[in-house]
């Protein structure tokens, strides 16, 4: 269907006008092959009474180079993939190690669109005299069901307060106590109040503070809206990437002496997730395809309180401030699941402040008992904030109220909020050491894309934002030091890049035939992963799921694009993301199938007990040369906290457990 264009008052065609902005803002490093950065002209400009529109010409797209010429390339010392909290923190760290380094951030979105922006509740770091690093470490290790590497945990808890203070010195608007000191709040699974917060938009403020701060660092340049399709590896060393500039469709090699993956998680492999549309596990799949192992991919965190339909997250802070979880009878059902007794005020590590895995599992049991409420978007329970009052909700949880009003059309001051568990976070990821280094030389990873392992089998709320800072900083430094001893890649990687360019053209843009729609395969994948690797898992379903994903991978080869153009081809981007997600889905389901025990977020109905003898170990999934995968296991680093039982609730009786004291 086509309607007539009605651009009234088209008065003048102005002359061609150079595009100011992106190209000028972002010096693309040193050009290797003699190419220039395109200054893309505008062919003409419409001027209307109220509209001034400039429509870009396509001339620049076809003017780049003739067929057969090798791929364009630029080069940097350190290249970040991803511009969220981890990526920007790593970029600053690298710049501070050596201001002479040439650092670039390549991201498929502008940095302030990165998913860090959605994080709400806060960032944990010991801040008050009644708290200690050991207690934060113990909460993290026990919260992770003893799968965390304790050397990583010790480094993390020691550096988190420094990193959060550094953010403060860069301008982050942390909430304050009346005397001007940093305020902290309670969070699930934490025995002390140690979560720094900026209202309930902590991730937003951290990301914008980091982004704005990077603007003053001259050595940091950016490739905004470039999509990375492949890591270039020569002789076992990562030498750069191939990326598509979305605006022009230009395919280019970006060479680097060290590459840091900071692409975040992969929630979009599930149908119902808090994760933004961009969270398609790109970095995990890029590393996996390049030969790096994925660690602990079976551990997927469900957050217990997502809004139905949208999957929008209602932050744990809502429970930390005193919210109740109610089943359809208005009963605080968590008391039936070894999480302690209901008290009017929140008690740390009890009831609503139990860990996320336990709360999400309790929901499933309530559903089996018929005590959830049915909605068009599946069963829900309710989060009750009404007793907190309008004043507290506005002061401490303004975003919760805004989200409920704007997206669910309810007001939590007066009404119950319908919630259900929703896929939130990936504990697993690209395997790294405590300096962010992967087993593949020249490749580093930090943030959700990585598995250090800090979070073990279940991450505690408010540990992920400081994780981005601590390990972003560590990876940035380590990569900068590695880069200073390296040479830039040579002809071998440029040949690989040319092959990749050919692949993108033959398999997508210039492909003939093809019958499958992206959305069809994506939906089937999401349903499959939820059915086989959801909150509870079992052998037969996992086996079936793995089979189905392999079938989808085959059907993916028969994909068809409606859009064959070069300019901002978001359908090509979706297709490439789907390819990444299928690899990630396969790794999740395969890892879950092989771990025949229950631990943290990985619950097997056919193996309900934790089995330390066999599985106090990280799973490592490798891709074989023939495209198949193999699972290996590596030991968990245990230092000061031997495996014990995870106990919540009963500790309310223990002398060192405290009732939450409210920060006024």
């Amino acid at each position, binding site marked *: *269907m*086509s*309607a007539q*264009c*009605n*651009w009234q008052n088209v008065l003048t065609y102005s002359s061609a006008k150079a*595009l*100011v*902005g*992106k190209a*000028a*803002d972002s010096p693309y490093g040193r050009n290797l092959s003699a190419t220039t950065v395109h200054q893309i002209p505008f062919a003409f400009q*419409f001027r209307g009474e*109220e*509209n*001034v*529109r*400039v*429509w*870009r*010409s*396509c001339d620049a*797209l076809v003017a780049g180079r003739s067929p057969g010429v090798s791929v364009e390339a630029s080069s940097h010392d350190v290249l970040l993939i991803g511009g969220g909290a981890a990526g920007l923190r790593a970029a600053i760290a690298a710049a501070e190690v050596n201001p002479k380094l040439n650092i670039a951030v390549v991201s498929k*979105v*502008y940095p*302030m*669109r990165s*998913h860090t*922006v*959605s994080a709400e509740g806060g960032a944990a770091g010991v801040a008050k005299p009644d708290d200690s690093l050991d207690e934060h470490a113990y909460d993290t290790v026990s919260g992770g069901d003893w799968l965390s590497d304790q050397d990583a945990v010790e480094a993390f808890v020691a550096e988190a307060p420094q990193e959060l*203070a550094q953010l*403060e*010195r*860069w*301008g982050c*608007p942390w*909430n*304050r*106590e009346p*005397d*001007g*000191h940093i305020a902290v709040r309670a969070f699930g699974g934490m025995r002390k109040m140690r979560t720094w917060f900026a209202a309930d938009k902590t991730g937003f403020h951290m990301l914008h503070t980091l982004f704005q701060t990077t603007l*003053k660092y001259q050595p940091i340049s950016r490739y*905004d809206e470039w999509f990375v399709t492949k890591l270039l590896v020569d002789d076992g060393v990562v030498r750069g990437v191939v990326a598509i500039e979305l*605006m022009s469709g230009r395919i280019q090699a970006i060479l680097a002496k060290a590459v840091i993956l900071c692409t975040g998680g992969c929630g979009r492999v599930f149908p119902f997730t808090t994760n933004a*549309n961009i969270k398609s596990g790109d970095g995990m799949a890029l590393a996996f395809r390049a030969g790096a192992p994925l660690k602990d991919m079976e551990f997927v965190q469900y957050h217990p309180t997502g809004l139905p339909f*949208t999957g*929008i997250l209602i932050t744990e802070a809502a429970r930390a401030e005193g919210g109740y979880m109610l089943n359809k009878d208005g009963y605080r059902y968590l008391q039936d699941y070894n999480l302690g007794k209901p008290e009017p005020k929140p008690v740390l590590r009890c009831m609503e402040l139990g860990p996320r895995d336990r709360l999400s599992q309790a929901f499933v049991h309530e559903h089996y008992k018929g005590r959830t409420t049915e909605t068009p978007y599946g069963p829900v329970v309710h989060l009750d904030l009404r007793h907190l009052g309008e004043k507290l909700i506005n002061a401490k949880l303004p975003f919760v109220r805004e*989200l409920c009003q704007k997206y669910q*059309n309810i007001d939590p001051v007066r009404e119950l909020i319908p919630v259900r568990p929703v896929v939130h976070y990936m504990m697993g990821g690209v395997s790294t050491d405590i300096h962010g280094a992967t087993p593949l030389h020249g490749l580093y990873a930090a943030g959700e894309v990585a598995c250090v392992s800090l979070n073990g089998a279940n991450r505690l709320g408010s540990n992920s934002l400081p994780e981005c800072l601590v390990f972003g900083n560590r990876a940035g430094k380590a990569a900068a030091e590695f880069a200073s001893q390296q040479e830039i890649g040579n002809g071998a990687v440029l040949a690989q890049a040319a092959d990749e360019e050919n692949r993108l053209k033959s398999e997508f843009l210039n492909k003939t035939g093809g019958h499958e*729609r*992206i959305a069809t395969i994506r939906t089937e994948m999401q349903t499959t992963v939820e059915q086989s690797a959801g909150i509870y898992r079992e052998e037969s379903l996992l086996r079936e799921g793995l089979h189905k994903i392999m079938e989808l991978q085959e059907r993916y080869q028969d994909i068809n694009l*409606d859009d064959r*153009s070069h*300019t*901002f*081809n*978001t*359908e090509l981007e*979706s297709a490439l993301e789907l390819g990444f997600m299928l690899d990630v889905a396969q790794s999740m389901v395969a890892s879950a199938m092989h771990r025949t025990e229950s631990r943290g977020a990985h619950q097997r109905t056919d193996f309900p007990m934790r089995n330390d003898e066999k599985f106090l170990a990280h799973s490592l999934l490798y891709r074989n040369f023939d495209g198949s995968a193999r699972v290996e296991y590596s030991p968990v680093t245990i230092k000061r906290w031997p495996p014990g039982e995870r106990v919540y609730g009963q500790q309310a009786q223990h002398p060192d457990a405290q009732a939450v004291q409210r920060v006024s």
Partner: protein
Amino acid sequence: MADKIVLEIARYSPESDHEPHFESYEVPVKREWVVLDALNHIKDNVDGSLTYRWSCRMGICGSCGMMVNGEPKLTCATFLSSYARNGNKIRVEPLRYFPVIRDLVTEIGGFMQKLKKAQPWLMRASNDQLSEGTYLQTPEQLDRYKQFSMCINCTLCYAACPVVGLDPVFIGPAALALAQRYNMDSRDQGAAERTATLAHPEGVWGCTFVGECTRVCPKHVDPAGAIQQYKIAAVIDWLKSFVTPRGRDAGSQAGND
């Protein structure tokens, strides 16, 4: 509420079109659906070449701003149902006053440069750097700039501002509010540095106080308020300069008392 509605969407591809045109698509109206859901429905099921940006779908990433029936809106926060009466149509266009790359995607490189011109980072006198620990800031001091720190860079205010439309070099509402966010921060000492950009015809003096920026802001940042606040500070500062010729420091008397 009708159960279907027609979206008229501006389409333009520089590779095949000389000028933009509209295409119409009928989509189901569901109570929870926002305009962005309708665009996703079209892209997934009808035409995969429809081009737009989106990410968080919760009004915080700032990607999905478009003109909806002539108003700048975040499409993730604009319900279909609020338009679905009496056979109404919804007209979706790219944000006004920006160059268009394709369909609903605007070029924001110029906007990014304007943000940088505001020098949006905390500045301290060099001998006053904390090497560790945190600055003190009371809740009252936080409140003075907090509102201006809420900007998600969605650029709706640029699409609403007639001055931006007439004068592309005007630094614009979001960048001015961001500069004032730092000027008003009790920890910042960079107000004098920012004066060159702000107290300039392309800075606050470009603003004719139409106030549309504040009206369309989805985060209640009030850029118009920030600009007026700065103008007053700049005038006081200018008057002061006759008394003490050194140290023109607009905004500082508001921020660093």
